[in-house]
């Protein structure tokens, strides 16, 4: 080997600051050639930032990037590609209306003169796809592909550009357990062929299964780098969080009460006008948590939106405590005391420029508690905010701080405080802990369990199977807009759920 001692990448003293946070605080990282190296850390530990620095999306404030013993300036993703570094982002960078092959050669100067040579491109793509088991039709339009296939396109895109180093940012979050297996086997083939892979994740099982070495990040710093063979889940978890982690939450036995929600044969379209829900039926009772599991994009978001009045159903009926609420407006449903914890908390759950106290009354400003003859009662609004901030331990300088200055966990607590303040009968919670650190996650889950104890009916939509197993009383699996089955959480088996997520119908007794 050469003088670099077999390191494909060396990062030295990388510092990257954002207003109010140091995302990377003097990070040293050495990646060996031909290894799968996991970057493990909680959300906000600085993994993605670090890789964006390496990929040229961010410029570091301090520090050096060394490739093959030479310091390089990574000024843009193009510079990174020139150095044969590729990245598969968590949210894909594909043009949905173009075909697979068009996406793959996007930005490359292929063909002769102004003409493209699609036949040659296609042969090249198929050769690569064959070799690594990345089967996908080059002439299919990207929007027609399932998420797992789109990820293959992203990997093909990188391989087509002859990368030596492939960065994968949380690649498994959109896959079924079976697809994850397939991805791992592809990654192993790539490494056998001499590629180096940097794998960002916060899931301990994946680290143990796929990596050669692992670097744990916490709060922007490297805690440790160690060979996976010498690590185990408990140590890694401790390194990652900085304290002992309890994997179990205390949950009281379910006290099922009266039926709150009844959904019958529900159909709805997605934004593109295709059927997203195909005949969904289920019941939800007070005092229970019914989880909706499934690979993202199988109708979960549409279901939440139809239930909360943000999307019209095309067929079927919904009853809330025997009152029909099919296609009622969001306002009417809110007035019936239904809480909605939305999936994209910053995009739709809050108004970033407004203050904490204003966000806390986003729906309730109409009530006579906060207004009189059309005028807002600022005193009551402040009081409400003070109260919510202490009850939910929202950490912020003051109630009139713009909410966008808060951390993700605190933003979610503001949303919970707002949505749960009236003791709702039905709570629709979508990815309630997504992107939160372990501390905040624990708090949010505890809050949901308290609501369950109080007798609320909770529909929990999540892609985190661990969360589903921890919290739910029953698990409903969605695939392609259909219910594959509803299982009892006590006796449910992860493998069974995985199969259902991939489209196998549950054969056992109906719940």
């Amino acid at each position: 080997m050469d003088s670099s001692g077999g390191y494909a990448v060396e990062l030295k003293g990388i510092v990257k600051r954002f207003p109010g946070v140091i995302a990377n605080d003097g990070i040293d990282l050495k990646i060996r050639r031909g290894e799968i190296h996991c970057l493990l850390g909680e959300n906000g530990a600085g993994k993605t930032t670090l890789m964006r620095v390496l990929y040229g999306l961010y410029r570091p404030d301090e520090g050096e990037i060394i490739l093959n013993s030479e310091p390089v300036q990574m000024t843009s993703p193009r510079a990174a590609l020139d150095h044969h570094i590729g990245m598969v982002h968590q949210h894909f960078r594909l043009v949905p209306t173009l075909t697979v092959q068009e996406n793959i050669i996007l930005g490359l100067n292929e063909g002769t003169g102004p003409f493209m040579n699609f036949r040659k491109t296609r042969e090249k793509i198929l050769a690569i796809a064959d070799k690594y088991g990345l089967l996908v039709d080059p002439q299919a339009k990207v929007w027609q592909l399932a998420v797992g296939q789109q990820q293959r396109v992203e990997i093909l895109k990188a391989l087509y550009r002859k990368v030596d180093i492939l960065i994968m940012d949380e690649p498994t979050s959109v896959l079924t357990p079976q697809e994850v297996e397939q991805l791992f086997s592809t990654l192993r083939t790539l490494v056998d062929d001499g590629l180096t892979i940097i794998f960002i994740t916060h899931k301990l099982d994946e680290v143990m299964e796929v990596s050669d070495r692992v670097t744990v990040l916490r709060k922007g710093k490297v805690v440790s780098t160690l060979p996976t063979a010498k690590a185990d889940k408990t140590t890694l978890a401790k390194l990652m969080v900085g304290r002992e982690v309890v994997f179990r939450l205390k949950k009281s036995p379910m006290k099922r009460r009266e039926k709150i929600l009844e959904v019958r044969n529900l159909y709805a379209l997605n934004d593109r006008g295709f059927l997203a829900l195909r005949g969904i039926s289920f019941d939800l009772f007070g005092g229970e948590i019914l989880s909706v599991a499934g690979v993202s994009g199988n109708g979960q978001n549409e279901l939440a939106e139809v239930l909360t009045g943000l999307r019209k159903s095309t067929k079927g009926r919904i009853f809330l405590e025997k009152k029909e609420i099919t296609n009622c407006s969001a306002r009417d449903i809110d007035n019936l005391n239904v809480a909605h914890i939305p999936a994209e908390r910053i995009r739709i759950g809050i108004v970033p420029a407004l203050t904490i106290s204003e966000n806390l009354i986003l729906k309730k400003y109409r009530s006579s508690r906060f207004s009189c003859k059309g005028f807002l009662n600022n005193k009551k609004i402040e009081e409400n905010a003070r109260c919510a901030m202490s009850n939910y331990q929202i950490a912020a300088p003051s109630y009139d701080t713009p909410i966008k200055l808060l951390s993700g966990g605190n933003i979610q607590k503001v949303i919970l405080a707002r949505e749960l303040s009236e003791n709702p009968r039905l709570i629709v919670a979508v990815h309630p802990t997504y992107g939160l650190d372990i501390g905040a996650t624990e708090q949010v889950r505890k809050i949901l369990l308290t609501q369950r104890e109080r007798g609320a009916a909770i529909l929990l939509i999540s892609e985190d199977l661990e969360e589903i197993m921890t919290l739910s009383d029953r698990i409903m699996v969605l695939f392609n807009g259909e219910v594959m089955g509803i299982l009892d959480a006590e006796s449910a088996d992860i493998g069974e759920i995985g199969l259902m997520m991939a489209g196998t119908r549950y054969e056992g007794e109906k719940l």
Partner: protein
Amino acid sequence: MRGRVNFKVERRPIASGFTVFLVSLFAILAALVVAGIFFQIYGVSPIRAYQLILRGSLGSIFGLTETIRRAIPLLLCGVGLTVAFRALFWNIGAEGQLLMGAVAAAGIALFSKLPDPLLLPAMFVGGFLGGAVWGLIPAILKVILGINDVITTLMLNYIAIYFVEWLIHGPWKGPSARGFAYSDTFPHAAWLPTIPGTRIHWPTLILGLVLAVMMYILINRTKSGFEIRVIGENPDAARYAGISQLKTTLLVMLISGGLAGLAGVGEIAGIHMRLLGPSHISMGYGYTAIIVAWLARCNPLAVVVTSLLFGVIMSGGDVIKVSLGLPFQLINVFNGLILLFLIGSEIFLRYKISFLRSLRR
């Protein structure tokens, strides 16, 4: 790295009021510098030109009153526009709404035969409604059919302009106008009182100031204002919170169009006393008010100040025409430059740029 300017761009969480003021000030200064080039092209020293403009618009009682007179329609249109802009409705149509307000008021003044004391109040109500109707058309088109508001409001300006032209050349052409394209002069009861010796029609001025305060209270203290702010800052969250986009959009355009209509009433009942050519009624107040509202960062109270500033610029236009013999249109160049630099300077509100001293060992 030697010899290179080293700087760092950082995102600013929130720009303070002082930063906003400073950045706006620099934008105006930059526009002044670039506009100076045009004076230079005409062979006039920019410094002398600016001196003349300032002296002409602020340095004498007459200049000052002319500045205030110009500021009145800018104030009314500008306050209305802040309300629309806060709800993300891009009303480029204040010019047309102003004209339609003038048309409605002129119709009442010329043909209504109302008793004298009721005439002026009826003209203000009619003017408000005229402007409001012209503002509600694009609002309905946007919310129900999804048609782009910039295009509809802009195009409706032309319809209003040619409608006024048609009226004064056709049905409303005054028998007493001796062949000119005017309507007849309004009856005296339809004339707004002015401060003696000036052209300041003070009832409209007071109306503008009161409405600025009212709109400030509306936006910041009321339920409707909360809905406007939520829609403006995050339309998706508004939908999630069950806020009706239709209702809010109709409300803001009722106000925005209505206030522009009131400005039209002031111009014809306070200055001209008849309906005449659209370019004589307005001189582009509806367009300039966009810059007025923008410079005020959509704060209705700040419009009081920014409308005065543009009053200075517009009466400065009279000065450069009279004293320097330059075209009045130079003012539009100047206004355009201010808007350009103002929008360009937004980046400095979102990002902080700090220069680093180069590290030399």
